[in-house]
Structure formats: structure tokens, C-alpha cells
């Protein structure tokens, strides 16, 4: 069968199966997922993207979903699990609606086709609604309850008290790591990340540039060390070159090269390639240290930090190729010796990798938070200034589903305002979105539903009827939702959440627009089809419906 007609049920089942996997590591009750690579290497992660890609799914639509998640998470570094959750809940709701009223038109010759058409129609509407209204809704309904974490405060103020857990950036990172590493180590790692960001003093105060720098050079900025408890992870001043020193001795062919180096006063030589012991030679006689086999990442960071240009041709060496090192010493990390950033310790290789990935994603998430230089959408001249939709850089909101509850309220509130004039048919779309949003906090408090209702009512009680009278608070003390801050759930970035919502709706739309799947036949197909059946039995523990 080379042609599969699009069937809404299949999509729903696929996404629900993905949701079942992801839920295991979602929220405060979630744990980690252990996976093995085809090389046999084991790896632990709570990262949604990692989990989904590791499944190696066969179903083309599932692969499409995974691809969307991957794209979203490389862009923002956050929200891959919520992505699947939202998508599944939207699909379920669309399914219910589509089943109820499939007879929108009689031109469809089967019930399935009619359902699919309704679903497609709804998905289109959802995206349109989101693109048009969401920004202003978030700006009006959510942003006033959050506050702005100022980058300048972070880089200057907390320098003196690096261990306090009070600053917004720290809280933001801490709750991010909570979702990634489990809560035992999130404080430790977020402390480290904060100090890493603080200690890299930059000439420019532009946060996005600084974060971009860390993002680009992260491989060279950390050193994984296995066999120690995680608490041994620490920050080290200087750059770690992951190589042993070689003291080398003599030969004629390079003498000329070394002489010219000597005349420039070089005492440490870095090279990217392995040097054969016999051919390398005379550096030791010239009292020169040679560090060879430096990885490209490290060398490029060094080049950036020191402002030198690497030598490509040995015959022409200029002073421009020379950097001054303020210090250079070996540090002993376990059994490896390093020249002298961030040392990540963990009991096994998989874990240090996990920490490294999490930190890199956190940097990416911060970049999204600060990178947006205030997207202005709703700036039509007739709207009063306080209604202008702006998500400021660095805007955060208490974590734990507050964003979703607030946005749910904002959408419903907005709908009431609109529905007085417009017809009732439009209603369904925002209502649907609002309901789908609520599944996120419901899942967070899945072990204790009473808790969820308490929080929701506490927030809603606080909400004023006209939100535009509120001022935008800049200080943490002014968080209006005091009932929530008591929970100490940390913070999350508003712009990341906003991006996530748009990404989910885009994915939903492209998913529902698929109408036929063409499978091109290959010889391999039969074999993998059989394997597919085996593994799906394993994954589909609770195929809804």
C-alpha cells in the first residue's frame, strides 16, 4: 500500500503516544529518560527534543512532529515537552469538535473526509487568531503580571553575592534546569551558569551579544570530567586547553622556524595538528612549550579572546600572530592534565553530557528572552499607549502554569468583549485555544488536582476586571500575584512561551494540511515495517480513544 489517506485518528494516536512518553519527564513529578545510542553509549536526559529524536519513529507524521519540535527547540532552547502536550490537547479538542459537527458541508463523500476538513478549517482559524491577536493578548493579559529582569542588574549587582538565589536571572535559570536535570542539582548548575555569565566580562553591555558569545563558544568553554560527584563542578578562571603539555626536543629542519619564533619572544606554541615527536624537535632547546592537537573550537575561542590571527604559513610569522598569556598553568582534573572556565563533574559520561547540553540550551533560552528587542505589533494609531502589545526583553513570569492560566483568562475575557458585537460562530476558536492551554497546568499538578484548582482560583481572584489600569512593574517586589510567589516555583520567560505557542499552532496547521502520504517503495521497507510494529506495541501504552 503505497498511498495512505490522511486519517485524523492516526494523527491523534501518534501524537498521544508521543505525549505518553514525554509526560514521564514532565513537570515536578517527572523523572529522567535513559537512552542508549546505536554505539551502545548510554545517556540520560529530560530534554524533550532528545527523547523524541531518540525514538527513531517510523510514522511519517510523527517524524514531522518531531522535526517541528526540534526546530523550535534549537531556536529557543526550551519548551519541547510543553510543545507535545499542547499539540496533543489541541488535537484532542479539535477531534471532539470535528466529531460532533462533521456535516459542515455535504460535498465530502465520507465521514472521515468531513472530519478532516473541519479539523483543517479549525487549525487555520487558530493560527490566524494567534497571529493576529496573541501578541496583544499576551501583552495585556500576561505581561502586566510578570516583571522585567534587567540584565544590567544581573551583571553588576550580584557580583558581590554570587550565592544568593534572589536574582531573576538565577531564578529563571534555576527553573529551567529544574525541568531539565531534576531538582536536586538545578540550584547548583544554575549557580554555576550565572557565575559563568558574570565572570565573562564583556565590553559591550548588550545581553544578546554576550549570550551569543557563550552560545557560539560553549564547546570550548566547558570541560566534562567523569567519576566525581556533581557537586565538584566548578568554575575555573582562564581557558582550559584539553591537552597535555609536551616538552619536546631537537631537529634541524624546524630550527629556522623556531629561531624566528624566538626572536619574537614566543614561549608557548599552540598548534591544531599532531606533531610527530621526532619532527617537532628543538622547541625544548629553545625553551618553548608546545601544546598540540588543540581542537578547532578551543583554538577559535582563543583567537577571539586574544585577538591574534593563527599562523597558516610557517614561513611568514608576524607579531600579529602572537598573543600574551597572563598565566598558564596545569590543573589536575582526575587523571587528565589540562593547561588551564567551567568544569562539569558527573559520575558518568552521559551525565556530564546532559549537563553540558542543558547549559547550552539554557543559554539559548536566555538568548530568546533577551534577544527580542520588543516586538511591536498592535501599534495602530487609535489604540491608547497602554494597549500597545509589547513583550519587553527580559520579561519573566512565575513558573508553574501561571502563564497558561493568565492567557486562558485573557482569551476568554477578550472573547466576551468581542462576542457582544460579533456572531457566535467565531467563538469556538479562542475557546478551544483557551481550554487547550489549561492542560499544561493541569499536567503540572497532575498528582494533586485540588492544588491546581486552588492556584487557578487564587490567580483569578486577584485579576482585576480592567487590567489596563495596572502599571508595568519593574521590580520583583511588585509581582502582583503574591499568592503564587509563595509557591517559589521559579520563573519562566514570556517570550519563550509566546514563541512556543506560535510554533505549536504552526505545526498543528501543517500537520492537518497533510492529506495523503505517499510511501516510496524500497527494499528496506519490509524489514523496518516489521520492527515498527514491535516497537509501537511498546510505546503505545495508552493510545487514547
Amino acid at each position, binding site marked *: 500500500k503505497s498511498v495512505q489517506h490522511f486519517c485524523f485518528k492516526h494523527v491523534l494516536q501518534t501524537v498521544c503516544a508521543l505525549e505518553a512518553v514525554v509526560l514521564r519527564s514532565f513537570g515536578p513529578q517527572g523523572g529522567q529518560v*535513559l537512552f542508549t545510542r546505536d554505539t551502545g553509549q548510554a545517556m540520560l536526559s529530560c530534554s524533550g527534543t532528545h527523547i523524541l529524536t531518540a525514538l527513531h519513529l517510523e510514522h511519517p507524521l510523527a517524524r514531522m512532529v518531531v522535526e517541528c519540535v526540534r526546530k523550535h527547540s534549537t531556536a529557543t532552547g526550551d519548551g519541547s515537552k510543553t510543545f507535545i502536550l499542547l499539540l496533543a490537547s489541541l488535537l484532542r479538542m479539535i477531534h471532539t469538535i470535528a466529531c460532533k459537527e462533521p456535516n459542515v458541508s455535504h460535498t465530502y463523500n465520507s465521514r472521515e473526509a468531513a472530519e478532516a476538513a473541519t479539523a483543517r478549517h479549525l487549525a487555520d482559524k487558530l493560527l490566524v487568531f494567534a497571529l493576529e491577536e496573541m501578541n496583544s493578548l499576551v501583552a495585556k493579559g500576561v505581561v502586566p503580571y510578570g516583571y522585567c529582569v534587567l540584565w544590567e542588574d544581573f551583571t553588576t549587582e550580584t557580583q558581590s553575592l554570587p550565592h544568593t538565589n534572589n536574582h531573576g536571572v538565577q531564578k529563571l535559570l534555576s527553573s529551567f534546569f529544574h525541568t531539565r536535570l531534576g531538582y536536586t542539582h538545578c540550584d547548583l548548575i544554575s549557580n554555576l551558569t550565572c557565575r559563568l555569565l558574570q565572570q565573562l566580562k564583556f565590553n559591550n553591555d548588550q545581553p544578546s551579544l554576550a549570550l551569543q558569545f557563550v552560545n557560539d563558544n560553549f564547546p570550548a568553554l566547558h570541560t566534562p570530567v567523569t567519576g566525581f560527584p556533581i557537586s565538584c563542578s566548578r568554575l575555573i578562571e582562564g581557558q582550559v586547553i584539553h591537552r597535555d603539555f609536551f616538552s619536546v626536543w631537537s631537529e634541524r629542519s624546524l630550527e629556522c622556524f623556531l629561531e624566528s619564533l624566538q626572536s619574537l619572544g614566543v614561549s608557548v606554541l599552540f598548534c591544531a595538528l599532531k606533531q610527530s615527536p621526532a619532527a617537532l624537535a628543538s622547541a625544548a632547546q629553545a625553551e618553548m612549550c608546545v601544546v598540540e592537537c588543540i581542537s578547532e573550537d578551543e583554538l577559535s575561542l582563543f583567537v577571539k579572546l586574544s585577538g591574534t590571527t593563527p599562523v597558516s604559513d610557517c614561513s611568514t610569522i608576524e607579531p600579529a600572530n602572537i598573543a600574551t598569556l597572563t598565566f598558564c598553568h596545569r590543573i589536575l582534573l582526575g587523571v587528565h592534565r589540562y593547561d588551564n572556565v567551567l568544569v562539569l563533574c558527573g559520575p558518568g559520561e552521559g551525565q556530564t553530557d546532559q549537563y553540558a547540553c542543558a547549559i547550552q540550551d539554557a543559554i539559548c533560552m536566555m538568548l530568546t528572552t533577551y534577544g527580542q528587542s520588543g516586538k511591536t505589533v498592535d501599534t495602530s494609531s487609535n489604540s491608547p499607549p497602554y494597549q500597545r502589545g509589547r513583550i519587553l526583553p527580559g520579561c519573566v513570569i512565575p513558573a508553574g502554569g501561571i502563564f497558561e492560566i493568565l492567557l486562558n483568562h485573557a482569551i476568554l475575557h477578550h472573547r466576551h468583549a468581542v462576542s457582544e458585537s460579533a456572531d457566535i460562530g467565531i467563538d469556538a476558536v479562542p475557546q478551544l485555544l483557551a481550554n487547550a492551554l489549561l492542560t499544561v497546568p493541569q499536567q503540572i499538578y497532575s498528582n494533586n488536582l485540588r492544588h491546581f484548582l486552588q492556584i487557578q482560583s487564587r490567580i483569578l481572584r486577584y485579576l482585576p476586571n480592567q487590567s489596563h489600569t495596572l502599571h508595568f512593574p519593574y521590580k520583583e517586589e511588585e509581582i502582583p500575584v503574591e499568592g503564587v510567589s509563595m509557591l517559589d516555583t521559579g520563573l519562566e520567560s514570556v517570550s519563550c512561551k509566546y514563541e512556543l505557542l506560535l510554533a505549536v499552532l504552526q505545526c498543528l496547521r501543517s500537520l492537518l494540511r497533510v492529506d495523503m502520504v505517499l510511501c516510496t517503495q524500497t527494499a528496506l521497507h519490509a524489514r523496518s515495517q516489521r520492527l515498527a510494529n514491535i516497537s*509501537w506495541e*511498546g510505546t503505545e501504552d495508552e493510545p487514547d480513544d
Partner: protein
Amino acid sequence: MARLVRKSPSLCTDLPLDNDDISTKLNLLRKLLTSCFGPTGKLKQVHNNVGGHVVTTSTSSVLLPAVSSSQPFVNLIKTSILNHVSRFSDCGLFAAALCLALTERAKQSGLGGNVAIGLNQHLLSLCVGYLQRDDCGCKVKLDFCSSQNLMTLARSVISSKPACVLTEQETLHLSRLAVQAFLLTVPCDSPGTVTLGRTVTVPVEGHSVLNSAVFPGLLVDITDAIYPIKAGTLNSNLLCTVLFSASLAGDLSELGDGIIEVHDGADPDSQILDQLLEIGKQVVKDEVKLFLCQKVIHPVLQQYLRSQGIIVIERLGMSLMEPLIQMTGAQPVAALHTTLPVKAYGKVRELTLRQFGSKTMLQLHPPGESAICTMVLCHRNETMLSELKVVCLKTEHVLRLTLREPSALLGGGCTETHLAAYIRHKSMSKAAETALELGCSQTEYHLGTEVFCRSLESVAAALEHNGGNSLIDLTHAHHWILPADVMREYGEESFGFCGCGLVESSPSKRWTYLNTNYTEFSPESLCGNATQQPRVLDSFVAKLNALQVAVETANLALDVRYIIQDVN
């Protein structure tokens, strides 16, 4: 055309700890490892499926790599323990036993995953805090003025490995040697950063363990040397030494894939030989007496050097190079084209011939103070010898760790029972506040504490393999073993000393079985009165790290909720 191979979907396991297969495997692993634990542990034989070498061992660093599982969950735990062992050499079985007991008991207790993890983490920090305190009741300060404690430490490590098959006298002899070798590798008067020397181990099969010895300097095997070394050359003052790391065999292998252009009529072989002899001439001129080479030396060059009265030793191997450089102060020569710089030469004070069975060794004495020594290990057969070698390396490492932190922990299970009693007492005092802080109910808090303490105690109890009972005294909370063949009467005659040998039984003492409930009490410290010396000590640094690794690994295991296996 590029061939595209489709990836097959991964295998998934939901909630691995609830999975019967995995639980069985973990239980099996725990039984396997705890049965090896301690001086009376049972030995394991490791065979491979194609026959050949059989290893008898009870050491975690040998045993764990041999345990291979298709289950990544098991491998996760295994890798953690192995990483600990590779860093600290000691307490691998302790870490494994504690980790697996903790995982199993936490699962059985029915505590929610995250609650159990939070509690374990909290209790671990209590333990670590207590162990690092100066008034910790299960810690002994090491006194470097006497070798007593170091000997005890070494003896505890050696005697905990029954696969070496040593008598009491042999154990004592080896501990003495281990301490002696350790002391030799600590440089006496070097200002600035102290670099520890090293001990080179030479195994000799077929001799009594009591023939093992430690020598300052290095022993080089010259069994294959074709000519007898004249006694006259051995005793002159400070022998000038040259050390080559490049091959002197005259081959061109080092050129790699390069192309050599040879002029018509030229003979590369003879030219290279000429070059080699050129080196020989220079060496003779510079009055070198000892000519060492990591690799092979061309026979003609050897012949020439010997005819000039130079002692030639080839094929030293990579492992001896660094100690040789440290000891002689020579710079290894890697290139053959240049004249040998004067500073490349090193010094050796004198040479002595040593005979160990069929092995003839040449002892190179260091020119001055040097932190290099050689330990010759003898044992009756190969299996025991290889285990002994592993044990001696561990002992050396454990002794070195004392330099980092001059403390040791009481052995014989006393640290574990003492810690458990301390945790019980400590956690009782502020139960309500701590439970609130950790976000769990008081019942959960007590349950979690019980799981943690019972796991610690089960490790202490695992030291007994002959059906005896483990007990704890209710004053110092030390560990006592009541052998199986003694009548169940709490009399003074039943127990002599506790596990570590620090506490002697007295009529006023009260005991209880380890797996029974006892009312919590604050365990008394014994460090004040030094009437008794502990008989069993464990490395402080290694055990502390093992404790942390064990709890963290257990937490990790409890945290894993899903397994995805890539089967491509």
C-alpha cells in the same frame, strides 16, 4: 549513489524500576557484589566463553568490567561505580552495595520517586557534614609521626581482598612493604610544589610472598642480556647515562608514508648505520657508561658500545621511560640527526645485580634523593599474583589519598552503623520542620530515613558471609558480629571486639540485632581515649566519595522513568 539505510525504531521500556526483568537483574547484581564484600567475601571466577584465561577475584575493578548486561539500566549503575573506582581505587563494592540496596529499598518502600530522591539528598548532606566535622565519632586523625595507622590502613585494604590468598604474616609483610614504598615516593626536601614519585611494580611468579621486597631506584630486566655484566663497571662513581626514546634499529618506519629518493649507488642501510655509529662515537667521547633505549638498538651499534665498556639496555618499554627520566634527570633523545646536547645526559649512582628466580634484574640506584622505587611482588601462581598486583596498586593509591586529607574512617562496618545511628538521632530532632522544607509529609520523612539507615546497615551486615549475625551496641553504635556457631547468649565471652577493634565488650554494654528497631540515641564518640588502636581503617577520601556516588547513583536510578534503546 549514496545508500540510505533507514533507522529502525527504538525499543522502549516504561517505568524501569517497576519492570520485573530489571528488578531481578538489579537484585542479582546486588547479591553478586555483596557476596564479594570484605575479608571473608566469596571469590568469583571470571571465564570467557571461548576458554582461556580464568580470573579469580573479589575486586570490584576487575569484577564489574566482566559483568556485561544488555540492559542499559544496569550498565548505568555499573559505569558510575567503575568511574568511582578508577578515581579512588577503594570502596567500589561499598558504593555498589549501598547504591543497589538504597534503590531496592526505596522502591519497596513505595515512596514517590521525587520524595525519595529529595530525602536521600538531604540525608546524604547530613552524613557528609557529620563526616567532615572534627568531632566525628567514626573518624580517626592520621598521625604521620608513626607508621602505625598507615600500616593499619594498608593492611585493611590488603586483607579485604581474599583472592590474594595471604596468611596473616604475609599480609603484614605486604602492608609493611606498601607503607615503605609509599614513604619512599614522598620526596623529603623539595621546595615549592611537591611532586610525588612513583612505585614501579615487578611481578615475579613462583616465589613465596615473603620474598617480595621494595628497592629504591629502578629495576630493569636484563634476563635476555647476552653477555655478563662485569662487576668492575658496577661500582664506579656516578655513571653518565643517555636515554633514547627513538628507535636505534636503523629502520625507516618513522617516515610513515613518505617517499624516499635514493641516488644511484647510494646504500641507505649503510648510511643509516653510519649515522648510528656516529652517535655511538659521540657517546663514547662523552664518557657515557650506561646506554638505555626505549626501543630496539641495532646489533652492530650494541656490539660497538659494549666493546667500549658501555652497558647497553634496550627495549625498556614506554612504562619505564617516565620513571627513568625522573630518576636520572636525562632528557630522552628523540632525533638521531643532531649532536647530543650535554644536558640530555643523566646520572646513575651505581648498579647492582639482583636475582629473582629465573629473572635477572639490574638495579639502577638514583644519583641523589629520588622518589622512585621498585616493588618486587612474588606469589605462588599467576592468578593470585595478578590479584596481588591490583591490590598493591590500590593500597598505594589509598595511602596517597591520606596526603590529601590525613584522616581515616573506622572499618569493619562500624562507620556504617555509627552513621546510621547518627542519622536516626539527628533526623528525629527536627522532623517536622525538615519534612516541611523538603515538601513531604512526616510519615514519608520517617519512612525515607528508615530506608536510608537500613541500607547503610545492610552494607555493614554484608561483611559477614558465614551465617553470623550482625549487631549494634547501644552506646557507640559500632558493628559487632556474632558468629553462627556461638550460642545466642549475650555474654561477655561472645564478643571480643567490635568490627574496627576500637570498642571492647563489657558487661554493661547492650546490643541489638541490626535489622530490629531500636530507640534512637546519640552515638558516643570514642576518639578521646586512645587506649585502643583501631584494627581496621578505611580511606576517608575514598569512602566519602563512594558514599556520595552511591547515593547520587541511586537517586539517578530512581529518577529514570523511561528507557529508550536505539537498536540500530
